């Protein structure tokens, strides 16, 4: 070792400025090659990634070798037309062989890919080493690539640039077909888009790109250029057009940055391009605002914290249900009940205290504030309603319900919960026989609500009917003969109908449909199952 460090010191002038001034010509052709490969790959890569065919790209890039060797042996020329033809034939043959094997046998697609591309690559290597002595078809170069030599091969660069341009224009022209067949093959078939033709054109595009870019970036590293920019874009956006644009951007950045990194580290330019593209992907994987790992972890831990808070609130509420209760729950009791470490309980308690849900009582205990009580009731309500829903509507056995309900109750929105409540016919009890609480705000005297939400022994006055009532319903409600502005006493539920007792001693049965329509003012609510008055009006 000559004492040179593995990572050389970075010299801005030497590694960034000089290439674009003194060595402009070399830089121009090398970067032009890199950028052309990157653009062509980035465009195709989007469709490969979306169609879950990324590995077919890999397979084609290897199998091309046999096409190159074959074309050379047949024509004796290394010119672009022979090589491109050989590449297209080999690429499409690879795709067709893989398809034939996994269609006609029990071998799955991934295994078929592995079998086919290795066989073709091995054949290519054997052909090249055995029959093409002294010819510049170098398997090493095929693997690693040499962008550095691009300024010596300016025609190759022009070909590659033309390929990139044609691909971009082609994708623009057939954008509809490509996106249809990528996202909804059934739909594509039904409107008459030839899915197979599109597929094979795409694969031919991959073949041409790989063969033209092979000398520059090599068969393996071209796979990075195919997948990494597209996958990066896929993590950053949801729209196909935007994905293609971002993908091209990533590819170009990788090509240019890679060139400078290679100058700095004095290593293979293709390798450096690949590393830069991979680093960009890693950054997107971690930090993408919508799909990044960091955001996911943050979301998950926020949810976990929310669940911990809600479970704690519920536990306190169930230990001392009434808001007026003076007893405090100690953290020892809570940690035992929730099977959590006392320090976790304390931490969650502290958070809830700061948010005003709990208040400290003496040294050891906490109790719910008014806000906390309302919140806890809502959680218990969500839990019990969801349990009821699972048993009644989904046919889950009632002794199997608990763990499932536990998970979903934290995710149900208010709106969804109302819908569940309505579908179940505003139930009073859950499958275990526990009362389903209603929101506290609903239970103050003077609140206006619908008859369906009322329970036995509550007193209410009819105010009118809701705006969504249909004509037929209006007629049926009128037929009930409920007096306006008079105190009515709600009787017990019988099946799915409500009973209402009128001041004159007669009773009316009202079904769910009508009970949802009748708007009442609550005069005397009942909270926590305690009786606030007799069944008859005193």
């Amino acid at each position, binding site marked *: 070792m000559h004492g040179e460090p593995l990572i050389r010191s970075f010299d801005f002038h030497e590694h960034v400025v000089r290439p674009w001034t003194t060595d402009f010509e070399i830089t121009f052709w090398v970067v032009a090659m890199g950028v052309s490969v990157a653009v062509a790959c980035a465009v195709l890569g989007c469709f490969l990634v979306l169609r*879950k065919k990324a590995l077919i790209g890999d397979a084609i890039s290897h199998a091309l070798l046999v096409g190159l060797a074959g074309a050379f042996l047949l024509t004796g020329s290394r010119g672009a037309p022979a090589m491109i033809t050989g590449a297209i034939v080999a690429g499409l043959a690879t795709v067709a062989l893989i398809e034939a094997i996994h269609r006609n*046998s029990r071998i799955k697609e*991934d295994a078929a890919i592995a079998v086919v591309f290795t066989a073709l*690559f091995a054949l290519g290597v054997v052909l090249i080493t055995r029959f093409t002595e002294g010819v510049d078809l170098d398997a090493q170069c095929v693997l690693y690539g040499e962008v550095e030599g691009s300024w010596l091969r300016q025609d190759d660069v022009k070909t590659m640039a033309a390929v990139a341009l044609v691909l971009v224009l082609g994708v623009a022209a057939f954008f509809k077909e490509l996106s249809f067949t990528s996202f909804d093959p059934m739909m594509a078939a039904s409107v008459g888009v030839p899915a197979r033709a599109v597929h094979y054109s795409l694969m031919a595009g991959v073949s041409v790109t790989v063969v033209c870019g092979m000398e520059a970036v090599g068969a393996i590293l071209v796979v990075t250029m195919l997948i990494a920019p597209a996958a990066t874009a896929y993590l950053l956006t949801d729209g196909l057009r935007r994905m293609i644009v971002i993908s091209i951007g990533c590819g170009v950045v990788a090509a240019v940055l890679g060139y400078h990194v290679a100058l700095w580290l004095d290593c*293979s330019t293709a390798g450096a*391009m690949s590393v830069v593209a991979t680093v960009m992907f890693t950054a997107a994987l971690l930090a993408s605002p919508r799909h990044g790992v960091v955001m996911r972890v943050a979301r998950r831990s926020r949810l976990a914290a929310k669940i911990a808070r809600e479970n704690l609130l519920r536990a306190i509420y169930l230990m001392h249900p009434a808001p007026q209760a003076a007893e405090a729950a100690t953290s020892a009791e809570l940690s035992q009940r929730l099977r959590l470490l006392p320090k976790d309980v304390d931490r969650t308690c502290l958070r809830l205290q700061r948010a005003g849900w709990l208040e400290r009582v003496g040294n050891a205990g906490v109790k719910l504030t008014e806000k906390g009580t309302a919140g806890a009731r809502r959680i218990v309500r969500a839990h019990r309603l969801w349990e009821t829903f699972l048993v009644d509507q989904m046919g889950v056995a009632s002794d199997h319900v608990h763990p499932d309900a536990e998970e979903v109750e934290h995710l149900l929105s208010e709106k969804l919960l109302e819908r569940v409540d309505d579908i179940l016919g505003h139930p009073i009890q859950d499958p275990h026989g526990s009362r389903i609480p209603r929101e506290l705000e609903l239970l103050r005297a003077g609140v206006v609500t619908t008859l369906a939400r009322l329970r036995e022994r509550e007193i209410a006055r009819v105010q009118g009917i809701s705006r969504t009532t249909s004509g037929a319903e209006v007629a049926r409600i009128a037929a009930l003969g409920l007096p306006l502005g008079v105190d009515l006493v709600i009787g017990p539920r019988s099946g799915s109908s409500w009973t209402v007792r009128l001041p004159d001693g007669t009773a009316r049965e009202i079904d769910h449909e009508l009970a949802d329509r009748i708007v009442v003012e609550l005069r005397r609510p009942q909270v926590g199952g305690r009786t606030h008055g007799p069944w008859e009006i005193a």
Partner: protein
Amino acid sequence: MDAIGVLASRVSADASLVDQIVTFFSFGHLTLVYGVIGVVLMGISCGVLGSFVMLRGMSLLGDSIGHAVLPGVCLAFVVMQTKNVVAIFVGAVLAGVLAALAIFGITRYSRIKADAAIGLILSGFFGVGVVFLTRIQRMSFGDQSGLDKYMFGDAAALGRSDLQLMAVVTAAVLVVLAAFFRHFQVTTFDEEFAASIGIPARGVHAALMTMLALAIVVALQAVGVVLVSAMLITPAATAYLLTNRLQWTLAVSAAVGVFSGLAGLFLSFVFDRIPTGPCIVLAASTCFALAYLFSPKMGLVPGLITRIRNSRRIQRENLLKAAYGLLNCGPPDREIALADLARARAYESSFVRRVARSLRRVGMATVTDNGMVLSPAGYRRAAQVVRNHRLWELFLTREASLAEDHVHRDAEEIEHVLGEEIVAQLERDLDNPTLDPHGRRIPPPIPSVVSPSEVSSEGAVDAR
């Protein structure tokens, strides 16, 4: 191209083909003996592990790990500054395991699918490796020519320490698989069942990945980065086309691996300028191609033959049916003109003649210049097919409530494949009918007077 192992030139520059073959089988050269031991060990470890990898649908993971070891190899070289076999091995295995973990992580925690993740890690790690490798080459320290051999492999360059490592890895793989065979089997085929009987699926998976990384790193020396996945998957896929039991798949896969290793070694030794690694892979690919085409149960050719046989039989039976119609309940041994048969089914007369000859070959008719006479077996089969047809039409109109004019085409297909048991069942369900929905007579069963096997084997429902 000197990185590709070209065995023969190393042993003798200009020997004749026969000399080379003799030299090969005398195993006189130490490099050759090492090569043979090496490919046998590789064939076994890769073949066995490859079967599990393929059955679990992770075929391309091996490819990915194979490429991904490159940075590990280079880093180990940079750290040790020599080609220390153990250090390089450790570096490579660590890089391989890291790659497997990265693929798992990406597919688990992002919306990127497995194929893209595998391709990314494969080429991304390889890119890092290429950067390292070219950097090392340009720094020009030490003798780094050995690093290149990981690209294409060289069974002829295997040294004593390489073989020892290979033997240890292969033995370890076999011992672990034998000791925990049921664990691997159950988690491969039914993960939920495995969980229900308390097998830690993740642990088994991790063990498999580790062994895979070990085996790949060892095999790299012989076949190289690009082709190592062939040693894993091609023998396994071959075995999968030949057997149904896991134990047999493992055994056959290992056998194919060993065979192709030896065959590749032999070919590259005997013929000048053929690299070993690709040769081994081509031998394995040939085994696969043969299995794909000729596997008795699953091969393309046996399947095609069965299909042709069936279509021939259907042609014969259609002609029998036509003959039965022309006989029109007359004496069964009356001669029927081939021209009439051609008219009845709108066939070409040459076609009728060919099918008639085919009937004669299976003993169902005798053919004269312009006509044919049904044999008793032929007449019985003809009656049977007509009976199947009319019973099925009746069944469709009565039980499936199809219109009378919609049932003929379906009956035309199924008459050839209805077995005797199903016909008996149909008859019971339809209360032994005598007339079909078009009012034609359903011929009663004719008791067999010749050999019963003839009819049943002809009329058997083909499993395909």
